[in-house]
């Protein structure tokens, strides 16, 4: 996981550590509204825009890492 992405996830989800195995089930603050802020924060930091397909998939840390990887590698 890129360190910048890890930092964003920890900041926005208000947790001290996070791993690729985490999901909304393992992190209490990760509700649907917070998820939207998370997406906006990631897009802002990496200067990318996710496609609708990405957004539907990005429901775990692992999927978020993958989606960010896809969008940033196309630059």
């Amino acid at each position, binding site marked *: 996981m890129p360190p910048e992405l890890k930092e964003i996830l920890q900041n*926005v989800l*208000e947790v001290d550590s996070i791993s690729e195995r985490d999901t909304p089930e393992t992190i209490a603050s990760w509700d649907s509204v917070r998820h*939207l*802020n998370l*997406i*906006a*924060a990631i897009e*802002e*930091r990496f200067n990318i825009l996710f496609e609708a397909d990405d*957004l539907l998939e990005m429901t775990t840390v692992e999927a978020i890492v993958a989606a960010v990887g896809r969008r940033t590698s196309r630059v």
Partner: protein
Amino acid sequence: MTARDIFVALDERPSISAYSAAARQLREHVTTLPLFRLAILSNHTFDIGVALGVECCRRGLQLAIHSGGYDQYRQELLESGPELTGFEPDAIFVSLDLTGCFPSISGAASARKLPEAAGWIEQYRALLVAYRERSETPVFVQTFAPPAVDMDGLLAAPNGQTLFDWVMELNARLRRMATQVRSTFVVDVAKLAALSNLAEWRDERLWHMARVGINPKKFPLLAARMARSFRALRTPSAKCLVLDLDNTIWGGIVGESGVSGIHADGADYPGSAYAEFQRAVLALRSRGVLLAVASKNDRALVDEAFTRPGMPLRPEHITEWEVHWEPKPESLRRIAARLNIGLDSLVFLDDNPAEICLVRMALPEVRAYQMPSRPEEFVAFLAGLEDFDQLELSSEDTRRAELYEIRKQQAALTEAATDLEAFYRSLKTVLIPEEASAKNIGRIVQLFQKTNQFNLTTRRHDRAALEKRMESGSELWSFRAVDVHGDHGIIAVALLDFEAGSASIDSYLMSCRVIGRTLETAILHFLEERALARGCGQIIGEYAPTAKNSLCKGFYQQHGFSPSGESELKSSWLKDLDAPVTCPEWIAIDRSLLLCPQN
């Protein structure tokens, strides 16, 4: 990390993630701040809490949020549920999305087919009035950001209106409506959206996916604007703007280039930019901010410079002058003393970083700011100073500079008069008591928030609290003073409680403009008269010392009260009442207004 460091780091690289990080770092700092409980009612997905918490903390408030149910704002305003009521909010923010209110209005709309706005405004008014009838909690509403696009093409509707015009007219109606509902204030989201790039205000993707009405990337900006309003609800605004002259009020150094060499007027840059700044300064003055000058200069030269035709700022606009070569902290101290206001009521502007540094060190209470480097930036800089934020203006505000002018003349008179009583008599002061009503409550609340020196208990009651007290039988009195120099407006306020044969003075405060004229005794006479009229055989007073009110420390003792208790926070005073304290014979109390039924 200090809170200051956290904000510096945040402002260097603001982002959603950085705000989240700052919110976590500020957690331990925020607990010392006074709590501000905000209920948010909205008809779209609006999760601004993190950014808003940070911006409130920056302005000295600890935010607690209660979010009402999605699109439940009508129900909550009409009949607040137990969750909202139990939360006991200090304020309510109603955030409405345009499409949420008008389903046919979005970027896909055209001006050829628009709904009726007036009816919607009336419905909204009814909701706000219904809430106001149950609660005095201040309510903030917002204007609507116009859709960034529309389907008008190059056309307008046959009446010449575009979709954009329609939304802006809706906003104007909303503003007018809000001024007519008590304690209801507007946060201008439309202007903020326009300033920050309207096309980005809404993220269409997030709107369609999850009804997110405002792009979360814009939350920091909106949060700052909201927090500004919340602070203005709690904190009095600065009272006096102290200005340097050279390279601040005008371009150039008058001592070097002479009166004809400075840039202060005309159609040419940079003179025109300085003239524009002067007009902005005058706009502040018309909002009740007093103007003063603190400049290291030759006074005669400065006087000559102020005679230049075409310079918007005139000598008569300046209430206090400190033009000499002494240190500026000394000038600021004198200005505050002569105006009878605290140093923390002063904002000082200077182009010289050394002067700013010196003032900040010597007088940390003064809010000192360095001017931007280019004069064309001055107006935006002044407009951005939150120190002058006010949610409401009273008629005293708009006349304040004039009132101080009257007071200055009086001070000159006092110096001339050898016999103090003769001076008091010469003023022909008339004191006009009036019970609080919708007409004067704005000024009364303002005095509660602003008065520091003659303020016996410094209880900062807000409008809601005062109205509650009056409903439960307390009397809230305002006092106007008129003398040979003119009408001073409402200069004092007192809140009287009555209980089992005794009256107690919860609050008694007087504007520093009229200190030293024995008005305080005349007002006490009136209050004791009220106590007797209500059948009270004794009257109780309290003095709670603060850093600023030592002036009235001996007030109750001097007026025949005996000490009846003392703690660290306050002393209590008691007096048996047969007759009210003697009113000074040079003050006439005009009771004619008391005969008129209120409201």
